[in-house]
């Protein structure tokens, strides 16, 4: 069961990589990435070429999911991901790109050192739990979050062009919405103490990310975090 869930995690993660690569290819097609090498250290057309290579590599990783070759393929994908930081320069979808890289590194080392596989997978799980809990701690310390002002500000930020249904705010205040979010994030580590809570918290977390996509357009967060849930189930529930 545990191995099966780990494989589901890998499939979801690689699927997320496939979707992200397709999105990035669209951007490369839209705007010619032809800055001279002295600006970026990257040769012309390399970004497009190296991004295109990722597609067959992801396919190969899915085919060789149970093979020793998976480590090599993941190593190549990790190298491409690291190299892309050279020309992308800024985070795509904020923290999701950092977490993406962390998962790549952990999975690569898990395959490289099969004896320590559990340690690397556990590190991913730890970071998932911390991602909710620390985010909650950081938020609750700000008066702006406790009063709901920050939530309202985020929804008005031009970067997101938020589509927030006004009916929701008519029924429930930003302050109440803020506290629902804060309580959810702060109480997330309870799932470690009481694994049965996973069946409440994981659907709630998935719904939270889905709402984030619908309102703010953050679809990358959705797939990266969702992909790790089978790992959480494998360690705490089974």
């Amino acid at each position, binding site marked *: 069961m545990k191995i099966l869930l780990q494989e589901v995690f890998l499939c979801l993660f690689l699927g997320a990589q496939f*979707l992200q690569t*397709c*999105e*990035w290819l*669209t*951007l490369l097609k*839209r*705007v*010619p990435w*032809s*800055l*001279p090498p*002295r*600006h*970026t250290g990257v040769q*012309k057309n390399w970004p497009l070429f190296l991004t295109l290579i990722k597609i067959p590599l992801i396919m190969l990783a899915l085919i060789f999911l149970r093979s020793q070759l998976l480590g090599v393929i993941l190593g190549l994908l990790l190298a491409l991901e690291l190299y892309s930081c050279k020309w992308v*320069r*800024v*985070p*795509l*979808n*904020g*923290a999701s790109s*950092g*977490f993406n*890289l*962390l998962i790549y*590194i952990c999975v690569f080392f898990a395959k490289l050192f099969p004896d320590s596989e559990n340690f690397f997978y556990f590190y991913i799980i730890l*970071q998932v739990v*911390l*991602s909710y809990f*620390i*985010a909650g701690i*950081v*938020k609750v310390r*700000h008066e*702006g979050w406790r009063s709901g002002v*920050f939530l309202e*500000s*985020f929804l008005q*930020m*031009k*970067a*997101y*062009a*938020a*589509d927030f249904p006004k009916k929701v705010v008519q029924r429930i205040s930003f302050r109440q919405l803020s506290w629902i979010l804060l309580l959810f994030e702060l109480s997330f580590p309870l799932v470690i103490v009481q694994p049965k809570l996973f069946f409440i918290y994981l659907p709630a977390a998935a719904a939270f990310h*889905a709402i984030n*996509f*619908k309102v*703010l*357009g*953050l*679809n*990358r967060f*959705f*797939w990266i975090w969702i992909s790790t849930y089978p790992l959480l189930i494998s360690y705490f529930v089974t």
Partner: protein
Amino acid sequence: MTQWFSIFFPAWKLFDRPGDSYRIFVQTSDSSPHFEWAELIRPPRRRKWREIFFNPNDLHWLYFHSLMNELSLRITEKSFEEAQLFFQQALEAHLCFLFEIESPKNLKILLRTEDGQMTHQFISDIDPARPEKWHLRKIPPLNKQEPQ
């Protein structure tokens, strides 16, 4: 080294506080005889559920805003000029695509934070005739003809 540390030990300061949000104004030589500034606005849009799989539009906008934040940071810190120019030129290229500006010649761009505390202005470096030919140019001082 710091970057590696932040990858292995993420701070998880997700949405801890709203950052700078910029209003974008452009001015082109042929936009009006008085060279008025025009604000570029992205209207809110309803996202379809299928976009949860494939959403390059929002990715592009978020990338564009990240570029604005980075450029603003470089200008404020007066950091390495080449890096600043990279962000400026990348920003211009993406701006022209997102706002469908076909001829970016003599395009002036002005970024201003929502609260009006910070303003950055620069002239486009993109030659519309040869978009592959990027060239360096000093960033001019602030124009006095700022938008209200």
